[in-house]
């Protein structure tokens, strides 16, 4: 088996729950996974180790108690989502693991997939037990093609050892998991587009309602969760929802993985309790800003509204605090931006991404991202007009809230916040002046 990438030394502030096996080569095999405490949670849930099996409702209750919220971006309470699945019914139910990690600034699910594939399998299986499903799917980002091999090796081992398939370890519970890759589309991270893609169709979002809990994959009740969310499930079942909740804050249970990138010394993925101060993340864990002083921080992946340095340094990283401050904790992708970075260029780079990734289905996103990219390119080049600054805001406002899926909002929110908070930098580009950061901004790439 290929050597796993080494995992850099952890920071003392970290609470290693989902990342407990990162860098541990034993987790690559089922035997090693079992040696490191793997499958004890499933054993508990199914009553494999002599104990009583947990009722499906009890599993959901434990997850509700943990206050685990979705780690993909929207932060929806996981236990509540599971409880939406109708009981009974003659349609099959599905668990979908969303491994289409594509949000710029986010690279945490990849580490779980690489370092601890069995934890994901175990989490999906427990979720399947909880909602009464017999089949799960892992939809892996197209660019993570090599991860498919890792997952498939792990799945094969789990099947061989009776941890998947018919009558798992004699429990009477049967469950199958299939791994599948996308073809390289950000849009397929959106849950309904992902289902379309998994069904073999164009990856475009569906009309909602109906929501996946009622009509998801193949028109059947479906739970769809992020990789990290599902990998958090076994520790919750094993050690209890209260234990998990108490790591974080009320309604913000547990630790989560933060992907720290940008102009910061120690870029990497860190598992920190929810509510961890952003200042400490940058200064202590991250080792400080690289190449200048702090100008701005993107708190939760490229689609979340940006914070100025001042706003950022007083902020705690939990869903509610970041929400109150006007942005989102999102996928936990923290991007640090120093004062030598041109914010117009940053906005342009972000817009290039969304223009490229817009699925094109609905008008405001398709045409709006194209318009903004073209206009920002012209503007940054030095051909801007004073009215352009308001135009950027206006066009983004016309995308916001008017698209079929959240991708439109994801494209509009960063540009709106950047223009509002760094308007003077836009004005500095006017009247034929060259970009004030032209000499420096190429020194350290941002995104």
């Amino acid at each position, binding site marked *: 088996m290929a050597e796993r990438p080494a995992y850099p030394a952890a920071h003392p502030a970290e609470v290693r729950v989902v990342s407990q096996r990162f860098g541990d080569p034993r987790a690559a095999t089922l035997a090693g996974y079992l040696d490191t405490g793997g499958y004890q949670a499933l054993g508990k849930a199914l009553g494999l180790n002599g104990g009583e099996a947990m009722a499906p409702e009890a599993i959901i209750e434990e997850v509700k108690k943990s206050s685990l919220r979705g780690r993909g971006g929207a932060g929806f309470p996981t236990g509540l989502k599971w409880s939406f699945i109708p009981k009974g019914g003659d349609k099959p139910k599905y668990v979908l693991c969303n491994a289409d990690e594509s949000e710029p600034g986010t690279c945490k699910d990849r580490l779980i997939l690489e370092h601890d594939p069995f934890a994901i399998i175990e989490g999906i299986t427990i979720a399947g037990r909880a909602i009464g499903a017999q089949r799960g799917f892992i939809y892996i980002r197209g660019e993570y093609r090599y991860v498919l091999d890792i997952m498939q090796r792990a799945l094969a081992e789990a099947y061989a050892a009776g941890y998947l398939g018919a009558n798992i370890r004699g429990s009477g519970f049967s469950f199958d998991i299939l791994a599948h890759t996308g073809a390289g*589309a950000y*849009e397929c991270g959106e849950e309904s587009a992902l289902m379309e893609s998994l069904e073999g169709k*164009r990856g475009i979002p569906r*009309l909602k309602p109906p929501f996946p809990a009622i009509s998801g994959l193949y028109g059947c009740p479906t739970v769809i969760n992020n990789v990290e969310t599902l990998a958090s499930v076994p520790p919750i079942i094993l050690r209890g929802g209260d234990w998990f909740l108490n790591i974080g804050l009320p309604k913000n249970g547990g630790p989560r993985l933060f992907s720290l990138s940008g102009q910061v010394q120690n870029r990497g993925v860190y598992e920190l309790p929810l509510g961890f101060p952003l200042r400490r993340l940058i200064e202590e864990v991250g080792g400080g800003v690289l190449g200048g002083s702090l100008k701005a921080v993107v708190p939760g992946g490229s689609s979340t509204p940006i914070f100025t340095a001042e706003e950022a340094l007083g902020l705690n990283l939990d869903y509610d605090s970041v929400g109150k401050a006007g942005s989102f904790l999102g996928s936990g992708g923290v991007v640090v931006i120093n004062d030598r970075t041109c914010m117009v260029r940053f906005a342009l780079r972000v817009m290039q991404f969304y*223009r*490229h*990734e*817009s*699925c*094109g*289905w*609905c*008008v*405001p996103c*398709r*045409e*709006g*991202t*194209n*318009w903004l990219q*073209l*206009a920002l390119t*012209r503007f940054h080049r030095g051909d801007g007009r004073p009215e352009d600054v308001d*135009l950027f805001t206006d066009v983004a406002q*016309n995308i916001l*809230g*008017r*698209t*079929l899926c959240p991708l439109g909002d994801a494209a509009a929110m960063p540009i709106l916040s950047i223009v509002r908070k760094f308007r003077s930098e836009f004005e500095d580009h006017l009247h034929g002046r060259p970009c004030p950061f032209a000499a420096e901004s190429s020194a350290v790439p941002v995104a």
Partner: protein
Amino acid sequence: MPETPSKPAPAAGAPAAPAEVHFTVNGHTLAAAPGTLLIEACRAANIEIPSFCYYPKLSLQAACRMCLVEVEKIPKLQTACTTVVAEGMVVHTETPTVHAARKSAIEFILTNHPLDCPVCDAGGECELQDMTFRYGAAVSRFDEPKRHRDEQQWSPVVYYDRPRCILCYRCVRVCGEGMDVWALGVGNRGILSTILPNHQDHLECEECGMCIDICPVGALTSGAYRYQTRPWEMQHVGAICAFCGDGCKTTLGVRNGVILRGDNRDKNGINGDFLCVKGRYGTDFTRHPERLKSPLVRDASGELRPVSWAYALETITDRWRGIQAAHGQFGVIGSTRCSNEESYQLQKLARRVLGTNHVDHHRSADFPALFDALAQPAGAAAQPLPQLADSGALKTAKAVLLVGGDPTQEHPLLAWNLRWAHRLAGASLYVLNRRDIRLRRQARRMALLTHGTEADAVRYLAAPQRGDPPQAELTAVSPPGDKRWPQTPPSTPQPIPGGLEEFRAELAQERDVIIVFGPELTGDAVQALVRFGASLPGHTRYIAMADNANSRGAADMGLYPDLLPGYLPVADGAARAHFAAAWGGDIPAAPGWNQRQMVEAVDRRELDALYVVGANPFRLDPVNAANLKSCFLVVQDLFLTETAQAADVVLPALSLYEKSGTVTNTCGEVQSQRRGGSFEGAKTDMEIIHALARLLGADFGRPDADRVFSEIRAQVNGYDVSLVQLMAGRGALAVPRDGAAPRQAAPQMIRPNHDSLFTAGTLGRYSATLNAVLEKHSRP
């Protein structure tokens, strides 16, 4: 049993849904059935909600974002095309926020839409123009370069201009969901998204042009029409398609008398949204260079020479008078593409003026056998036959039995309606056919006959106790209402034990079946079909499929040797007396010769004169040219057909598109149309018939379709249809009265053309567009 006082029993299951929900739009309280889309409810109340991607009866897209409205208690604007009305919902469609959203949607759409309206075919009839005018901004803020991509040709008749495309996906849906062809798809993503053929660089399709018709802008244009004119330079004349027997309305675009296009502009004919390749593109036969412009008379050298109308008509009547004086035999063959009025006057000329019952037309369905089979026993009071269905009835049918025929190829409107019923009304379609026809994809059950004919199978269904069932494979179980895409019935028929008996048993579970049958059933097979239909529960109705635009009208108007108009027997003295009184002259009593017998009489040199109007009988029944010398042949047509080439006199006629009158489709729906195009040198068949009658001393009156139709309404069984309905552009079902039709003696005279989508008997040869399409589809 003692009576126990009790509350009314609760209804089984969930409480019944309320009949209506009430909601408020812009302060007006509206009501609609539960499940109604907000956009439909508003439009029904005359509240305009603009949209591009929304199209009634196609799947929902929510893509154009033009129909955003405010719904109270929901923070974001909502798409009215996907919002279902709910009790107590409060909606605002005319607020500053909604106006701003519409303006912005138009602005976004226009960012990459070229403003080439002055040369765009859709200019003047473009929904984007109209919407920009009504809802758009006065200022363009988009200053960046627009994306350009070169135009593509996907078929002889379909061009695609990506820059103009606003990606509403109507074309993709109408092709897939409506036509069940699935030739179009969406490619690439984001700003590079594009509509594209699912088969490399060209369309593998029925060339129906529905994608062009449904395109709200000029992205899809017609290869037969593009760049020829501006829409406002044309008159738009509602006509009935001159090709198959379904009777679709096609709106002719006419400039200076020239028909430049057919399309489905106002969608208010019996065909609704639908039009096929012939109705849309076939009109160009009217411009064919070989169109006859002058009467021709064969001169002493044997050549056909152009002559004046007066000379030609006198030549004819002089000869006819001579033959009459010598008590010679006349034969008359009428057309399946002339108007009802012309067919009526033609048989009147034959019977009353030429004194012959040798009258016929090219038959392709056994209508007399159907009406005879449906008749009540003799002596019962004559009632209109209630068992005939119109084409629209198929759309709401619960169950349909299709025996023989291939509607997809031969009756595209009936096929469209059958698919509609399957897709939107959950109808069960049962197919009985020797061929694996395309409608199998919508069939709940198909009996694919492996041995024997449809007639054998129908006889078995009617009387299963007699003999072994014809062998059939049952296949294609497609549950009604299954909207999954794509529908994938088994690629090869799977034999199912039970064969036709199982087919019969399943049909017996259906109520109110409409039976549609093709030319495979004639004579006693039609009788057997009706016996079987009568055994089914509920009210069984029938449609017989005949080939041409007025095949049914020709039959109804009495172009038969043994039947007078309205299927009254020639042999019946009372019937003869009725028409003799109406026409002011005697009618010969003996039934005449049918078309084949007339041609055989030519070969025996027993027929002295043959008058062929809009027909090409020598294509079906060739004659020996030498024998023709003793028969004076007059042919009246648009082109020099095989029959016309043998004629002594050829008279140039106008086409159905160039005359006013009524036609009757294969279901019996009478429709009225006005003259669209004109063509110098030719006359309508009615003008010619009237002129010949006048020269022979009979006054048929002014050649005016309305006047003749009044006579038909008064005289012809079943034709007392509502004039109001006709004038409103609707079809009015002509229903012959009970007991009218005697059985036909010659079922072998039912000789269908088996046209494909791209052929149309003799007429189709003269459409350049149909030929181009045919050529594309015959390439290996």
